[in-house]
């Protein structure tokens, strides 16, 4: 069985865009999206100025992150190494777009399902070269079998001078470049202007490095056509509703464990949890490009995808919440004592899986690592405690002083921990990659600075101060007023951070 790969001899590429258009024609690609295109970069100072052309297409990765994350197995690897896609199975969750470090997936506006380059598998099966190869005037594109040592593509792949995009991602890309420089290979290496030499700039990633007029020789992108970022406010809202949903059940269960027997932990908290979990599920379904196919995630699950695990955790969470409410409603208090531990476990799972799901978004360095799972848990505790405090106040539910104290400590402790986490992650630790540094810079002083400083940090600090003041028994304002303020500011801070995290994570150019 062959193992198909691709090589592009950049020394021969003249930047004519014939490949882009041939691909569009072969696959009837709508306006605004591309399976392949030719990035253009200018660098150097006159007269030592250079213009570089860099055709990009799917790398058909040996270890394809899009296949791993796809919840319904719509993306799959053929035996010949081509990463292909069953449009019929795609629910349009856009997870693949989050996973691909090369910005090679997009949602087709006609079918509302994901699309990507598949080396023209439809042609390859007819023993025809991919359309972009067949059209190329200068024959700079080479297609063939990497496992056949006599093939041109295998020889180039074996050449020490051949490069791939982002080898550090460990995806084993199978598109090799001859004659590439860092300024085209690395998306972060070139500044991104606000107009191109032949047209308007569309979908410029917000955290892109901007041209510095005092450094005119810097590499500058003169053409690129990124795809729309997959996630936005939808995900921030999902994080908030889910955080409240899991956090309220978690904190309610802990309260019960500590002896609380109030309606708040027994019924009101879990009911709010269920409400928010159902809302979360609704948001997730509505957010799909093909919401009517949402159940494919259950009938065609890919167990390597955290999205699938998350779905089951949310279902489990909803089920336990329902049981809890039922037990509480019908007065089976004994059952509640049994349910406490599964409720805690499931809340933690349903909270933390999202950290792993984001980390499965290999494209985004800001989201890498397990720490965000912990951060999400801390946030969920803060959100849960805050909501319970609000419910207690507005629902006029009386709880024991000890329980109030627990909620105060939970809220204050979680907000403090989260603030510490955010500060350490974004203001103290050094970035390991340029991609990460750009995302952090977008947070610190870029387009997200207002939400970060004013939303996540200032509101968090106010929340912390309010809770501390309440704890210290200050007489300036009422204790309950302080707690309410603390709860509201904690929720605002939490949401602001989630939004910043989602957006800034995706603000760095990928191609």
């Amino acid at each position: 069985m062959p193992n198909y790969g691709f090589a592009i001899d950049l020394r021969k590429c003249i930047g004519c865009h014939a490949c882009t258009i041939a691909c569009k024609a072969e696959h009837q690609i709508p306006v605004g999206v591309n399976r392949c295109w030719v990035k253009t970069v200018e660098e150097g100072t006159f007269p030592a100025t250079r213009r570089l052309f860099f055709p990009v297409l799917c790398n058909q990765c040996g270890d394809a992150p899009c296949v791993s994350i796809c919840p319904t197995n719509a993306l799959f690897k053929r035996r010949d190494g081509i990463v292909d896609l069953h449009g019929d199975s795609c629910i349009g969750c856009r997870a693949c777009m989050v996973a691909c470090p090369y910005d090679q997936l997009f949602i087709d506006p006609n079918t509302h399902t994901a699309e990507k380059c598949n080396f023209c598998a439809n042609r390859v099966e007819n023993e025809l070269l991919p359309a972009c190869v067949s059209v190329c005037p200068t024959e700079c594109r080479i297609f063939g079998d990497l496992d056949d040592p006599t093939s041109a593509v295998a020889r180039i792949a074996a050449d020490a001078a051949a490069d791939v995009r982002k080898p550090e991602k460990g995806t084993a890309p199978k598109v090799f470049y001859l004659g590439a420089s860092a300024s085209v290979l690395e998306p972060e290496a070139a500044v991104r202007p606000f107009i191109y030499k032949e047209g308007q700039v569309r979908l410029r990633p917000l955290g892109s490095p901007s041209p510095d007029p005092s450094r005119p020789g810097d590499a500058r992108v003169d053409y690129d056509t990124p795809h729309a970022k997959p996630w936005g406010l939808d995900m921030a809202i999902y994080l908030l509703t889910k955080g409240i949903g899991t956090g309220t059940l978690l904190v309610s269960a802990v309260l019960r464990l500590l002896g609380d027997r109030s309606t708040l932990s027994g019924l009101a908290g879990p009911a709010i949890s269920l409400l928010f979990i159902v809302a979360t599920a609704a948001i997730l379904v509505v957010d799909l490009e093909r919401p009517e196919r949402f159940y494919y995630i259950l009938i065609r699950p890919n167990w390597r995808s955290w999205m699938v695990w998350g779905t089951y955790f949310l279902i489990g969470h909803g089920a336990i919440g329902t049981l809890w409410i039922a037990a509480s409603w019908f007065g089976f208090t004994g059952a509640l004592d049994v349910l406490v531990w599964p409720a805690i476990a499931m809340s933690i799972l349903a909270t933390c899986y999202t950290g792993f799901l984001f980390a499965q978004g290999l494209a985004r360095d800001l989201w890498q690592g397990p720490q965000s799972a912990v951060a999400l848990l801390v946030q969920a505790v803060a959100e849960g405690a805050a909501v319970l405090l609000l419910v207690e106040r507005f629902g006029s539910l009386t709880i024991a002083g000890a329980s109030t104290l627990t909620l105060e400590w939970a809220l204050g402790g979680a907000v403090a921990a989260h603030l510490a986490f955010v500060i350490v992650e974004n203001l103290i630790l050094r970035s390991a990659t340029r991609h990460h540094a750009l995302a952090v810079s977008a947070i610190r002083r870029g387009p997200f600075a207002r939400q970060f400083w004013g939303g996540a940090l200032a509101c968090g600090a106010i929340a912390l101060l309010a809770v501390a003041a309440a704890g210290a028994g200050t007489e300036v304002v009422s204790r309950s007023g302080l707690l309410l303020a603390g709860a509201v500011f904690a929720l605002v801070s939490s949401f602001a951070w989630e939004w910043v995290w989602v957006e800034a994570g995706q603000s760095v150019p990928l191609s």
Partner: protein
Amino acid sequence: MTMFKTHPDPSQWDDFIDYESTSWPRKDRRHYWIIPSVCFNCESACGILAYVDKEQLTVRKIEGNPLHPGSRGRTCAKGVVTPNQLEDPDRILYPLKRDGERGSGKWTQVSWEEALDEIGGRIRKAIVENRRHEIMYHVGRPGEDGYANRVLQAWGVDGHNSHTNVCSSSARLGHFLWCGDDRPSPDYANARTILLLSSHLETGHYFNPHAQRIIEGQSNGATLIVIDPRLSNTSAKADVWLPAYSGTEGALLLAMVKILLDDDLYDREFVRTWVDWRGYLHAERPDLAITFDHFIAALKDLYATFTPEFAAEETGVDAAQIVEAARAIGRARGTFSTHNWRSAAAGNLWGWQITRCLYLLVVLTGSVGTKGGVGLHLSNKFVPKPPTTPAPAEYWNELLFPREYPLAHFEMSFLLPHLLKENRGKLDVYFTRVYNPVWTNPDGFSWMEMLTDPEKIGLHVALTPTWSETAWFADYVLPMGLGTERHDTMSQETHAAQWLGFRQPVLRVAREKRGETIRATYEANPGEVWEESEFWAALTWRIDPDGALGIRKHFESPNEPGTPVTMDEYYGWMFEHSVPGLPEAAAREQLTPLAYMRKYGVFKVKDNVYTPYEAPLSNDALAGATIDDAQALVIKDGKAIGLVVDGVAVSGFTTPSRRLEFFSQTLVDWGWPEHAVPRYVPGHVHWRDLKPQDGEFDLLPNFRLPTLVHTRSPVKWLYEISHDNPLWIATADARRYGVATGDLVKVRTRIGYFVTRAWVTEGIRPGVLGMSHHLGRWRLHEEKGNRNASALVTIDRQGTGYKVTQVHGAQPFTSSDPDSARIWWSDVGVHQNLTFPVQPDPVSGMHCWHQRVTLERAEPGDRYGDIFVDTAKSHEVYKEWLAMTRPAPGPGGLRRPLWFDRPMRPAPAVYTL
């Protein structure tokens, strides 16, 4: 291991089974006819394959034709988008007639019968009343070889007008003066050194065929040198980029000439044999005995001042780089390939002298017609003879070749409004054919004034597939077919071979394969879109319905006299009688020549065409000829017909001397003795004359993009890549004027101004501004025009001028194509050509594109796309340039040297005034 093919094998073309890509990986099979044709989107004539869906009878996609010797199965982006053009929601599908004032935008759909009757009747009346000179056909890129010319010739009309003088006349004239051949045919693939003064890796005359071969040559070790003040994509691929100030290229080239001479890097034997050095010494150096050594000494004298240091000072290019480039050229010895098409030659006054300086390098390295050198278009382009050849016109049309421009290489097309303004004539019937002078030519508002004046133009017929700024001012807009909707033959000198391509209406061919009888192409085309060949035949029959005028017979069926010729008959005759080798090749496959061409779309006539000038003269040619021993010339009927080389009579070149003419007696005879030899003359916008303190710049407005062709490519897939033409400005200049990328700037010319955005770059020489030629399309009606590619504008009269204001740019809209609603770009560029006065070179007639402009920051109230032009001023500039001419008659009372061809040569007698 699988052997992948670039294309389906021709044996599969009658029923190619493909997997449907849009439902993949489900294996839905679709059946296609693969029908070859020829791309219509530029002049390269690349072979294409149309995939015609057998069920839906639509063109699914276009690919390159692998059998085509020029394009070798590959195409550029513009070829692949043909289906975009076919399905363009804004294309014109039915004949339209003006209803209301010209330009008022009111149209009524009419029948073809009505249109043909009125136009034919009007032409007939003009012919009968001996007003043939009031009929004119004005063509942009012809995209076909000779059909329309023959129509005019049949009518007895000297009315062929072209776009060449806004395109390439100076490149052609310089070449022609040397070797009597209109244009070069470089053999890039086999070259050791390639020098480009044009951006052939992104545009150029034959972009795709040439780009393939330039890169092939470079990959095989050739050194690529590019002279261009701008970092074009071509400059970007160069091994040596020489960004000379525009207009100084001649100095750079002559410095290279001097290095070749001084370092003995020239091909002595070639120059001695093939150059008319005797003529030069005789005319210009009577002090020297006529020996070859004296010629070399004289050359060294002539170019003694062109040291690398002088050239460096003049051109701004580093002297060491000039030496490096010259040595690479010298080393190539017979394998030096070069081309000069638009940039330097078309940009500058005396641009044809730049071409001559360049060709001197070709001659000195002995690279004329050699393998890896520069061939001749005459020997590499193949034009088959039609069934009948009508007699040439018997009058001289002074609107085409006014006597002020006796050496104009092509028609003085872009002066037409000024010539009519001076009452030099009027036009009763004026065809614009896939030609958009209001937009493409300089000084478009003078065109608009002419077109809207019924006293100047009686009837304006626009033959076009789509709306254009010019069609808007027509009386009839007649929809014509695109590259897969018409018959034509076409050939180009893409490399050292000869081939003939056949364009076909693929849906008609498909339906005929299905067994249907199709009487005319419009039956198979969408709407009522005709093909031109049938249109001209039908129109000719309206002009001469009974054959009494002797015109009809040229378009009469040979099989059924009394009926118009069919396309099968016309092209069938040509392929059977006029293409050497084709009938035999067809017979080998048991096909008629026509069936062969319908199946394969192309025929290679000859391969490896090298040094055609060495061809021995035939015995027939030699009969009655004498030998002039002193000149080593073969003389017949008082004219040189060849020369003697090593005792053999060979054809040589098509110049009067049959040799390569370093010295042009013609230029001396016609009043330009100072230009008799290749020399450096700075262009009309020389950097030393500019006043930077006043914001003066040299504007290069004539570069193009690989993705677009003006007038033919306003389609979605191309426009989403390229849709704006900001003003290129060097960083240093931008700093000085306080301009940043994206800022609005105002560029003033002699006759007006335009407002656009700046694009600051290190990719252009300081002092020079650049702006792409392609963009800035506009329309005057919300829905009649290319909505994805043009801005809706208003044009307001202000004094003797016009002010253009953009109402809005491109916008999403609803149509049969869901992509129309996805248009995300709004900027579509700014139309700069409106603000350029006509600047005809007094010799070649080429419009000299470079503009001396003043750059200003935009004032409050200026908006992107604002344009103002004063046409009274533009007529003044016309007169200034006209005053530079040296009018006919020349020797013998001629209007034009007899050896100077014309696209449609009238009878020899009318060459005399």
